[in-house]
């Protein structure tokens, strides 16, 4: 249901681009206005969201400790899973952000006869997630060559590494294929694992279909309906240098590609995709496990009503005296 709806939304987006460009000839709208609007929404949206998050304070020091605390000097403590200082926290965050450390832990719980619970290693989600995010990043970096002139050396290098198999012409770029495979896996597991299907919302399928659409249109454009790459670069470089113009004669598939990307950018700040920024702020991960060593202050700490010792003694004085417990007032 959610999947169909999201699929439908993406189809409509494709149609809008087709009709808008091919039918109505709105080149400037789809080539300039919408991309600018999308990027602006993206940047402002992300900034505002992060500001909103950081406005909420972290009242308590709540790292989830995943290893031995730093305590006695002869007990080996876990610097990465239970870091006691900033360096360790940076290490922990780096592992989390770059290699998805926590997802790597993933297990599959199974109930067998006996009854016996068994916990099997389950790294597929981790692998697909990692493949997806890294290939996406590399694809993004590769695309820098459309927005720079001259193209920086590292972009060219990544490009040629990516095409190292030297299959076909133009060379098949691995990351595009990996991206499409990984995102397809992520979609399939959402549909076929009953629990995951049960929790999935349209908002979980939409980004997947958008990205599938973006990757597919990109691949089609590069290998099949080849568009005039020189003209595409004229347009993109124009966008990047704030000197936009729309050269005539770029195939419509390019506009579909661009419109889907714009949609993704504009949607990003309002969606779960913000996990990209959120992971850095997560208080269970980015705090050191040093709360008994270093005082943590709650900015909204306020005085509360308490039951004082005097009130306690007042109530129990006789009983205390009878039990031989010292009291303040005889």
């Amino acid at each position: 249901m959610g999947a169909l709806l999201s699929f439908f939304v993406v189809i409509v987006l494709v149609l809008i681009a087709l009709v808008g460009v091919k039918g109505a000839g709105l080149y400037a709208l789809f080539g300039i206005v919408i991309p600018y609007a999308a990027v602006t929404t993206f940047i402002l949206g992300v900034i505002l969201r992060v500001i909103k998050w950081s406005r909420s304070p972290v009242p308590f020091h709540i790292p989830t400790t995943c290893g031995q605390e730093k305590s006695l000097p002869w007990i080996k403590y876990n610097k990465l899973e239970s870091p006691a200082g900033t360096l360790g926290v940076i290490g922990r965050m780096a592992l989390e952000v770059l290699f998805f450390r926590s997802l790597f832990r993933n297990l599959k719980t199974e109930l067998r006869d006996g009854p016996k619970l068994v916990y099997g290693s389950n790294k597929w989600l981790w692998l697909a997630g990692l493949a997806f995010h890294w290939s996406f990043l590399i694809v993004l970096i590769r695309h820098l060559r459309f927005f720079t002139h001259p193209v920086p050396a590292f972009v060219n290098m990544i490009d040629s590494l990516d095409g190292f198999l030297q299959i076909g012409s133009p060379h098949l770029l691995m990351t595009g294929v990996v991206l499409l495979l990984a995102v397809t896996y992520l979609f399939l597991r959402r549909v076929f694992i009953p629990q995951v299907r049960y929790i999935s919302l349209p908002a979980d399928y939409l980004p997947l279909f958008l990205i599938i659409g973006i990757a597919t249109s990109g691949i089609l454009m590069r290998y099949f309906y080849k568009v005039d790459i020189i003209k595409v670069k004229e347009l993109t470089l124009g966008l990047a240098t704030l000197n936009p113009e729309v050269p005539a004669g770029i195939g419509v598939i390019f506009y579909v590609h661009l419109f889907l990307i714009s949609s993704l950018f504009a949607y990003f700040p309002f969606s779960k995709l913000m996990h990209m920024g959120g992971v850095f702020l997560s208080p269970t991960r980015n705090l050191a496990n040093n709360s008994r060593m270093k005082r943590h202050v709650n900015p909204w700490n306020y005085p509360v009503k308490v039951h004082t010792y005097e009130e306690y003694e007042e109530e129990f004085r006789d009983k205390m005296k009878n039990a031989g417990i010292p009291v303040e007032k005889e």
Partner: protein
Amino acid sequence: MAKPTKPPKPEELVKIDYNPPEKPWMEVPVEFKPGTFCYGTRPKYLEEVGLPNPREWSPTDDDWKLPSDWKDTVINGIGERLKKYRSFQLFMDICVRCGACADKCHFFIGSGDPKNMPVLRAELMRSVYRKYFSLGGKLLGNLAGARELTFDVFKEWWYYFYQCTECRRCSVFCPYGIDTAEITMMARELFNLLGCNTDWIAGPVANCYRKGNHLGLEPHTITSNIEFMLDDIEEITGIKIEPTFNRKGAEILFVTPSGDLFGDPGTYTCMGYLMLFHELGLDYTWSTYASEGGNFGFFTSMEMAKRLNYKIYAEAKRLGVKWILGGECGHMWRVVHQYMDTWNGPADFLEEPVSPITGTKFENAKTTKMVHIAEFTADLIRHGKLKLDPSRNDHLKVTYHDSCNTSRGMGILEEPRYILKNVCNHFHEMPEDTIREKTFCCGSGTGLNAGENMELRMRGGFPRANAVKHVRDSHGVNMLANICAIDRATLSALMQYWVPDVEVCGVHELLGNALVMTGEKERETDLRLEPLPGKEEDEDV
């Protein structure tokens, strides 16, 4: 009130169906199954601490007697908390519903109820958050996964947020560290704005507020309970111990959960402390006012937790001690380690803790000035300050249960193991994926250790029990050690149900068994007054 129902037989209970129903979860109404929820609080407990809406009510009633503006209270309460807790705000926004946390929750594993998957538990709240606090939810409603807050939704929250023990296991596996416990805490704060605590939590809170401890032990009862233990110790060792209470000028204030003072096997652990401190000649005192290390306020609201926690520093100040030593307890240590200083510090009237026996500076407790007894004892053993005879525990094959709070909210993993390996000869770990940071909850934490929800507890404790069964079958384990007063009570019930031949003890009970005390007579029994290995024949004669 409904009568407590006995849980079904284990063979019945393990018939668990993990397949979610056909209907989308928003359309599946909550069903209060007997044995899986706690009673609603009696009004007197709320009155005693001044919490709102005290009245007679039961979760199975059609009318919970909520104030007419209850919805506004909840929505405003959410809004306020979003601004006060980054964790809450962030965790409402960034979950990608990847499902990595789904089968990590002991309640899901034990029940198969999809709403016990941490992600869906959180979605119960998130869906309402979207409706009232996000543009997409306001505009698109159900399509954006948003839903209206209704009384049925509120009831559903109540049912499922009292089926989360705030154990943080989900948080270990979540790629963004989303801690469903944080969301449960917020939900429970909201319930308490409307007088909807459980009886089993509100009672101990009220007790603790006025009498100093959850069990409501009055000062003379505390001393006499300890006297009983001292008699037993004298019978076992021939040594008479004379601890002090509320003594000014002692070097150390000792605070432990009141569960250690009442009922076995907690009292055996307490005997272990008493024997250890006596043997060391430690200059310490008990307090009848700060006679609770645990904190059921923590399962009520942050404010209530702070109100109860206040007594510890206040008493340390009044008595003029140098630092505080804390006994074995799980959630107590989550609170001490991560909250106490922030709530009620700075404890600048105390000194940086130093062991008077070894001279070790506990630098890790520099500002909070409270040391965990396992840290304290491990340091003693390391410095060779204790004479130990582990063979006195030879009748025991021991495994160790990491409490959720001490493992995932503190990280004290090695100290208790070090002590155990020094005080007993047979120690076996449970499977790796069920211990340390991946440990499984006893199934009854955060105040779910009541009697009326026994089925829920046995379900939630199933993964833990199953891992114990594994080492019982493979290594003949017959003793489950831990450092938590709640565990000592709840795991005992759990073992009786799932693995009946395994008993439960605190680490310091085993230490008490092994501790060779100056001037003691030859021991015939362990702290449970059961004959020591090799001494059984004498009994028979």
